[in-house]
C-alpha cells in the first residue's frame, strides 16, 4: 500500500461522513455541470444565430430611406472608403429611381393602388414611397384613376440579391444584365412585363430614352416583379445622378467581424450615414441568450466556488482531526510530499464519487433548469421585441419598402428572438465531461492540498501534541 492507496482507503474510514460529503459535493458538482451544459447549449445557439444572421451591413445616407426623408445621397468615393476598411469582403452599391410621367415613361405600373394607395395619394411619400401619379395622358389628380410609379433599381450584379431586397431572381426569358455594361438595357419584372406586353428584345421609353428589354425575371414577390433592373451606371447617367448611391450593402469577411466592420463604418463615415447590420436586427434575440449565458456563467462560478469551499472545509476538518496521526506518520519517516499525496488522493476519491453522482444529477436536471432559464428570458424578450414591432417599421430596403412577406425589422426581431430561444436543448458531449472532470480534479487538488500542506509543514512534535 502506498500513500495514494492509503488516501483512497481513508475516504471510507467513516461511512456516515463519506456519504454526507458525497451528497453535499454531488449537489454542487451537479449544479456546476447543469450550468456548464446550459452554457455550452447557449453558446452553440449564439454561434448558430450569428452564423444564420449573415455578414451583411446596410449603409444608407443619413435621413434618407428609399424616397422618404431628406439629405445628400452617398457617392462612389464613400463606397471606396468603406471598401478599404479592414474585414470588408465586398461592397454592393445600389441606386434607385422611380418612373412616373415626369420621367416620361411609357410603362404602366403593374401594381393596383387599392385603398392603401388611394389613401396615400393625398400624402405623397408617407407610405414607403408609394407616391401617386396620374397615368400618362391624365391631366392632374382630380377624379383621375391613380397609378403607382414604377420602381427601377440600378444594380452592379443581378446575382446580388441582398441590395435588392429579394429572396431570389430567376431569369424566366432572355438573359441577365452584364455587370459592367452601360448600355440602355433593362431586366423587367414578370408582372410589369405582362402589364406592358414586354418581351426580350422589345423596348420602352424612360428618361426620354429608348430602353431595350434583355430579359424577364421572377423574384417570387409581386412588389419586385413589378419593378425594373438596370445597370447602375446606365440608371445614374439617365437620372443625371452620376456617381451617386442610394445605399450600400457591405459584406464582412466573417460573422465574427460584423460588429467590428459596423463600428468602423460608423467611425469612418460619421453622421452622414445610417448603418444597420443584420446583427442589430437579432441583437434582441442574442441579448436574451447573453442574459441566460451570464446567469449560467455566474451560477457555474458560484457552484465551483462553493464545491471548492465545501471540500476545503471538509479536508480542513479531516486534517485537523488527524493531526496526531500526521505527527506519528512524520515521526516514523513520512515526508511532507507523501502526507500531502495521501490527503489529495482522499480528496480526489471524495470528488470523483461526488462527480459520478453529480453527473447523474446534471443529466437529470439540465433540461428542466435550462427550460426555466429560457422561459424566463423568452417571455421578457418577446415582450420587448413585440413592443419594438408595434412601434412601427424603421424603414425598408432601397426602393421604398420591404418586399411583401418579408416583414419589417420588428417582425424579424420577434421571429429571431423566438427561433433563437426555441428548442434549446442541453446536450452532454465529451467536452463537457473533460472540462467537468478537469474542474473536479482541480477542486480536489486545491481543496485538499492547502490544509494538507499547512499541517505537513509543522514539526512532528507539534502535530502530535494535538493542539
Amino acid at each position, binding site marked *: 500500500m502506498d500513500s495514494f492507496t492509503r488516501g483512497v482507503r481513508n475516504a471510507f474510514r467513516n461511512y456516515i461522513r463519506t456519504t454526507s460529503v458525497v451528497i453535499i459535493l454531488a449537489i454542487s458538482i451537479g449544479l456546476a455541470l447543469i450550468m456548464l451544459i446550459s452554457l455550452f447549449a447557449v453558446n452553440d445557439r449564439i454561434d448558430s444565430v450569428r452564423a444564420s444572421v449573415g455578414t451583411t451591413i446596410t449603409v444608407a445616407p443619413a435621413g434618407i430611406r428609399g424616397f422618404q426623408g431628406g439629405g445628400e445621397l452617398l457617392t462612389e468615393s464613400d463606397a471606396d472608403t468603406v471598401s478599404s476598411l479592414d474585414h470588408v469582403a465586398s461592397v454592393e452599391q445600389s441606386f434607385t429611381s422611380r418612373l412616373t410621367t415626369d420621367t416620361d415613361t411609357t410603362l404602366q405600373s403593374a401594381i393596383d393602388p387599392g385603398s392603401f394607395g388611394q389613401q396615400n395619394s393625398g400624402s405623397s411619400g408617407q407610405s414607403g414611397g408609394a407616391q401617386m401619379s396620374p397615368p400618362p395622358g391624365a391631366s392632374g389628380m382630380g377624379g383621375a384613376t391613380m397609378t403607382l410609379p414604377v420602381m427601377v433599381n440600378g444594380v452592379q450584379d443581378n446575382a446580388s440579391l441582398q441590395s435588392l431586397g429579394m429572396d431570389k431572381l430567376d431569369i424566366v426569358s432572355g438573359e441577365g444584365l452584364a455587370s459592367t455594361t452601360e448600355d440602355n438595357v433593362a431586366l423587367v419584372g414578370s408582372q410589369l412585363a405582362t402589364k406592358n406586353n414586354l418581351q426580350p428584345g422589345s423596348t420602352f421609353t424612360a428618361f426620354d430614352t429608348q430602353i431595350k428589354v434583355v430579359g424577364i425575371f421572377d423574384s417570387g414577390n409581386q412588389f419586385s416583379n413589378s419593378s425594373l433592373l438596370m445597370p447602375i451606371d446606365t440608371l445614374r447617367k439617365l437620372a443625371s445622378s452620376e456617381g451617386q448611391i442610394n445605399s450600400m450593402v457591405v459584406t464582412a469577411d466573417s460573422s465574427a467581424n460584423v460588429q467590428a466592420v459596423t463600428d468602423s463604418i460608423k467611425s469612418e463615415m460619421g453622421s452622414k450615414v445610417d448603418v444597420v447590420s443584420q446583427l442589430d436586427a437579432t441583437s434582441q434575440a442574442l441579448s436574451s441568450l447573453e442574459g441566460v449565458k451570464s446567469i449560467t456563467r455566474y451560477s457555474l462560478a458560484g457552484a465551483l466556488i462553493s464545491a471548492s469551499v465545501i471540500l476545503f472545509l471538509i479536508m480542513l476538518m479531516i486534517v485537523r482531526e488527524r493531526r496526531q496521526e500526521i505527527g*506519528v506518520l512524520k*515521526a516514523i519517516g513520512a515526508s511532507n510530499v507523501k502526507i500531502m499525496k495521501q490527503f489529495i488522493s482522499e480528496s480526489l476519491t471524495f470528488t470523483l464519487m461526488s462527480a459520478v453522482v453529480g453527473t447523474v444529477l446534471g443529466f437529470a436536471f439540465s433540461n428542466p433548469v435550462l427550460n426555466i432559464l429560457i422561459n424566463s428570458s423568452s417571455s421578457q424578450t418577446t415582450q420587448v421585441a413585440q413592443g419594438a414591432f408595434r412601434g412601427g417599421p424603421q424603414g425598408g430596403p432601397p426602393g421604398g419598402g420591404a418586399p411583401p412577406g418579408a416583414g419589417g425589422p420588428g417582425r424579424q426581431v420577434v421571429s429571431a428572438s423566438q427561433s433563437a430561444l426555441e428548442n434549446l436543448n442541453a446536450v452532454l458531449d465529451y467536452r463537457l465531461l473533460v472540462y467537468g472532470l478537469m474542474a473536479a480534479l482541480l477542486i480536489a487538488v486545491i481543496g485538499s492540498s492547502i490544509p494538507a500542506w499547512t499541517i505537513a509543514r509543522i514539526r*512532528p512534535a507539534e502535530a502530535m501534541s494535538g493542539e
Partner: protein
Amino acid sequence: MIKADGLVKEFMTASGSVKAVDDIDMQVEDGKFVALVGESGSGKSTLLSLLGALSKPNAGSFLVDDTDITRLNDHDLIRYRRDSVGFVFQNYSLVPNLSALENVMLPMEFSGMPREERKKRAAELLSQVGLDGDKQARKPARLSGGEQQRVGIARALANHPRLILADEPTGNLDSKTGQNIITLLRELSRSENTTIVAATHDLSIEEQCDRIYRIRDGKFIDNGDDAA
C-alpha cells in the same frame, strides 16, 4: 554512541518562558537500554522528542556517530527519523484503519522498500514480538492494549534503527503486560544491538535498565547510575 551536550528546549507560555529541557548532557553507548525517570511534566517526553528530531532544541547539540542532528536540514531530518530512529508511544499511535501488518509496513514504505519485501519483514517482526496468524490481519481496535504495543514495537524496529525512543511504553498497560513489554524491549536491545531510551515513571523498569537518568524540571538530578 549518542551524545547530547547542553540541550535546551524552551516554550513560551502565557506566564512567560519555560525551559522544559534545561542544559541536558547525556551519553549512551550502542545497544544500551536507558531509562529517563521522572514525574509527569519533568521534561522526559520533550527530551525524547529532541533525541528523535521531532522538534528542534533552542540550544545545544545532539550527536549520533559524530553527526550533529540539530544541524540537519528538514530533508535529512526526515531521513534520520525514518532510518535511524524507532518510536514507541504510550498510546500506541497506530493508524486505526490499517491492519497490524500494514502498520508495521509503513516505515518500510517510506524508506522505499519493495512491497513484497516489506510485507515479509513486517510478518517476521510481528512474529518476533509474539503476534502470529490472524492477529496480524486485525485492525488495532480488535487487538488488546498489550498487542497494540507489540505492533508499535514491531513498527519501531522495521527499518533496523540504531535508536529506539519509547515514551511511557507501559503507561496504558497493566503491570504484567507492561513487564512483558519491557522484557521484550530489553531482549531486542541485546539481540539487535539497538540503543533504547525509554521515558517512564514506572519504577519496575529500573531493574531492567543499563542506566537510569532521573529528571526533574528539565534537569538531570541523577545522571547515570548503572542499574543493571
